[in-house]
């Protein structure tokens, strides 16, 4: 048996560790400054117990590898690479302490405490930012293949809607340019029905540029998904929608581009991207610099394609009208966002800098909580918790008198130890967690109640104070250990099997049980030992 001194030293040490674990402090961290590109020393405030989003407000997103457009074989690897990209993006995004972590089943969990613009947060996280430069279909391979495509679709049993536009395959919407028209030798089908695809297509001004009436874009998309269509497509050519649309007459048309399958360059070679406003036309633009290697490759490729049109494709959408390549392009370029706000250009620059996501990510769970709601929740939770704890103190003090107050003192240590345990485990305190903590105070006195009741029984049997206390602690032990261990085992199972919130709850429970056993058995016992030592002749005990 340890002496009182050793026990007090141990309790003191535990107290100091617990206080150290939960007191917020500042540390100096070396960090890369995104603007200057240099390492700077930043003072970071470490708050040991992070508050959950329900308490401080913010945006929560759960993302999964999007498998709706075909299965992704190694989703675990994909999600891990995505995690890095998302983390890089969010570090520049400006939210304090963003949380990015992978959880089970190839899922990515993103938390942005305090963020109040969920739409923007979603764009930053979800945008794939896959940038490509491709030459448009200069040889009109796609247009030449149109009759074949129509036939393949016809053979596959696709019939036109009947009221589809003009009867000739590719009509020249803008009329004028006859030099291009001579290439359009796709024989006009006599039956409207068989030209189901080409009948909704109109030739644009550039080679590889087509227009589709906005109301027909769904039809085109569904046709493109068919195997008959895919096998009939000319090799080396892909189709991409544009961000742009145009109004001609009473109808609105969307641009569809046929471009080469092989990209001249991808965004992997991008090194720097900045947003600015073009002083000439007041457009928002993103200027980018390529790496030296990328610059060389790009100069070579563009040198071979002078006078050709180059589509800038971002996440399967052609950005604006493809510009003509007048000369070799080196390591610099820009993407024109036209009249979109500058903030959009800044976000695009940010995601381009951080790199592309390897896969598409779909949001499966999102929550955005306003900051005032969190403040109200904290206020209510703390008020209710304080009243509850006050009631416990009252009951214990009245019923067990001085011993009860000893238990209450131990209870204060219990709360401190539990919070410290949660801080050490890196646990996030949520509203249910706060409720659980308040409730656990009510349950934590159970160990003390068991001991006190036992001491009273022993006293009733006529035992001396000293013996009764010894026996009381000894006999209550088996009940305390068995009940707490079985509860802890249940909690451990919950932790192993459960997810997110259930796991957090399990950790709170385990930490609470450990803290309650330490305080009730060890700390209260020490209090009694001190008490008995000071009053060796004590014949009655205040219990």
């Amino acid at each position: 048996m340890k002496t009182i001194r050793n026990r007090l030293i141990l309790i003191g040490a535990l107290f100091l560790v617990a206080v150290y674990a939960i007191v917020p402090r500042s540390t100096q961290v070396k960090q890369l400054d995104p603007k200057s590109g240099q390492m700077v020393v930043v003072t970071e405030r470490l708050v040991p117990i992070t508050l959950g989003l329900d308490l401080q407000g913010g945006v929560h997103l759960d993302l999964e590898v999007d498998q709706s457009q075909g299965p992704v074989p190694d989703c675990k690897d994909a999600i891990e690479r995505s995690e890095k990209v998302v983390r890089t993006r969010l570090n520049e995004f400006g939210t304090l302490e963003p949380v990015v972590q992978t959880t089970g089943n190839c899922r990515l969990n993103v938390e942005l405490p305090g963020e109040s613009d969920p739409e923007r947060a979603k764009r930053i996280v979800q945008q794939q930012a896959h940038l490509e430069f491709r030459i448009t279909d200069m040889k009109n391979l796609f247009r030449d293949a149109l009759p074949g495509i129509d036939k393949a679709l016809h053979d596959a049993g696709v019939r036109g809607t009947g009221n589809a536009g003009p009867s000739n395959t590719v009509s020249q919407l803008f009329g004028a340019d006859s030099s291009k028209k001579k290439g359009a030798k796709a024989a006009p089908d006599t039956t409207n029905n068989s030209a189901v695809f080409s009948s909704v297509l109109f030739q644009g001004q550039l080679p590889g540029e087509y227009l589709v009436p906005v109301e027909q874009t769904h039809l085109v998309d569904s046709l493109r998904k068919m195997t008959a269509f895919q096998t009939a497509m000319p090799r080396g050519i892909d189709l991409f929608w544009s961000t742009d649309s145009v109004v001609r007459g009473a109808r609105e048309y969307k641009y569809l581009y046929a471009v080469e399958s092989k990209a001249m360059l991808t965004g992997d070679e991008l090194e720097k991207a900045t947003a600015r406003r073009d002083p000439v036309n007041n457009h928002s633009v993103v200027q980018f610099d390529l790496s030296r290697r990328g610059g060389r490759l790009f100069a070579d490729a563009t040198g071979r394609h002078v006078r050709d049109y180059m589509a800038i494709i971002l996440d399967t959408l052609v950005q604006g009208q493809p510009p003509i390549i007048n000369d070799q392009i080196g390591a610099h370029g820009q993407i024109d966002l036209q009249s979109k706000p500058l903030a959009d250009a800044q976000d695009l620059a940010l995601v381009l800098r951080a790199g592309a996501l390897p896969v598409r990510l779909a949001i499966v769970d999102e929550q955005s909580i306003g900051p005032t709601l969190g403040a109200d929740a904290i206020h209510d939770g703390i008020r209710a918790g304080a009243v509850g704890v006050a009631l416990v103190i009252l009951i214990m003090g009245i019923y067990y008198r001085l011993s009860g107050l000893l238990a209450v003192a131990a209870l204060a240590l219990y709360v401190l130890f539990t919070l410290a345990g949660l801080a050490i485990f890196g646990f996030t305190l949520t509203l249910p967690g706060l409720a659980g903590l308040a409730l656990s105070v009510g349950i934590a006195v159970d160990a003390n109640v068991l001991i006190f009741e036992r001491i009273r029984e022993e006293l009733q049997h006529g035992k001396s104070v000293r013996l009764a206390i010894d026996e009381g602690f000894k006999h209550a032990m088996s009940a305390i250990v068995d009940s707490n261990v079985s509860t802890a085992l249940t909690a451990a199972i919950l932790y192993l099997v459960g997810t997110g919130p259930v796991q957090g709850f399990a950790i709170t429970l385990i930490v609470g049980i450990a803290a309650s056993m330490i305080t009730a058995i060890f700390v209260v016992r020490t209090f009694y030992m001190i008490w008995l030592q000071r009053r060796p002749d004590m014949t009655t005990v205040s219990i």
Partner: protein
Amino acid sequence: MFRLFANARYDFIKWRKWAYGLSALLIVPGFVWLLISPPNYSIEFTGGTQVQIATLDHAIGAAQIRAALDAGGLHGAEISSYGADTAFMIRARLGETNSGTQQASDSTMRAVRSSFDRGLGPTKYKVMKYEGIDGKVGKELQGKAFLAIFFSFFVTLAYLAIRFEWRFGTAAVLATAHDILTTIAFIKYMNLEISLVVVGAVLTMVGYSLNDTIIIFDRVRENLRKFRRQNLYDVVNLSINETLPRSILTHGTTFATTAALAILGGEVIRPFALVMAFAIFTGTFSSIYIAAPILMYIEKRWPGEDARGARILTSPMAMPAAGAAAASATQPKAAKAAPPTPSPAR
């Protein structure tokens, strides 16, 4: 020193049949009702879109909100007031066919905003909280919660089998299963929404109820050693009575905190606190009236080594003779040396 229920001598076990009836009265209608109308799952489990708004004008009620939504083409949304008279929860669940796409949730949110902007005015409301959840996440959560409870039963059974005996473990687990059933029925009666917080409360309840049962069983184990010739009926009754002051105290403090949470804790915590408040009652009830009688029943069917279960239900009055007869059959010498006493004399 003042003690509540000290040296109590209530015959708890006598009322067990009434207790079974009471349990059945609680559970059966609840589950019949559950069969008729499915439980009210929260958005975390069903998937869908949920928006919590605060109106900045007291004159705006649920009727105006519904009118605004209907005008915006969003029919059949659930609108409930949430705490204060200016706070409303609006929920639109995704249909079964719309297999949880974010686009659907996004467009719902946009439609809600635009119909409010038109119907209520953009300055008259504030979006406090917005949730959009894919249904499949909820299905996973549901499965995992049940799996966790199921596994925890096995571990408890194993631990109690080692520390006590399998008879005790089985009785404790059955009592806990009873508590889960009554709690589910309670959730239905109160028409509480089954959310993650409520599932958390049920899990807390499992731990709490188990804890309470073990405290009584620990005393039964001790008393079985102390009064070797005693009838199990009396030992169980005695143990419950001896632990009664502790039960009153612990349940009292727990109930005090729970009540404080239920009354003052706000809308998010209230369901948790209500379920816990009920859990305190059902956990205490089942430890006394379910766990203990089941232990006696198991002892009777599959008697332990001292065959005490075989004379479980002999009346306490007729005890000495029957006890002596049974004892003399097994251990004649010991029976002569220490005649059994009907009540523990100390």
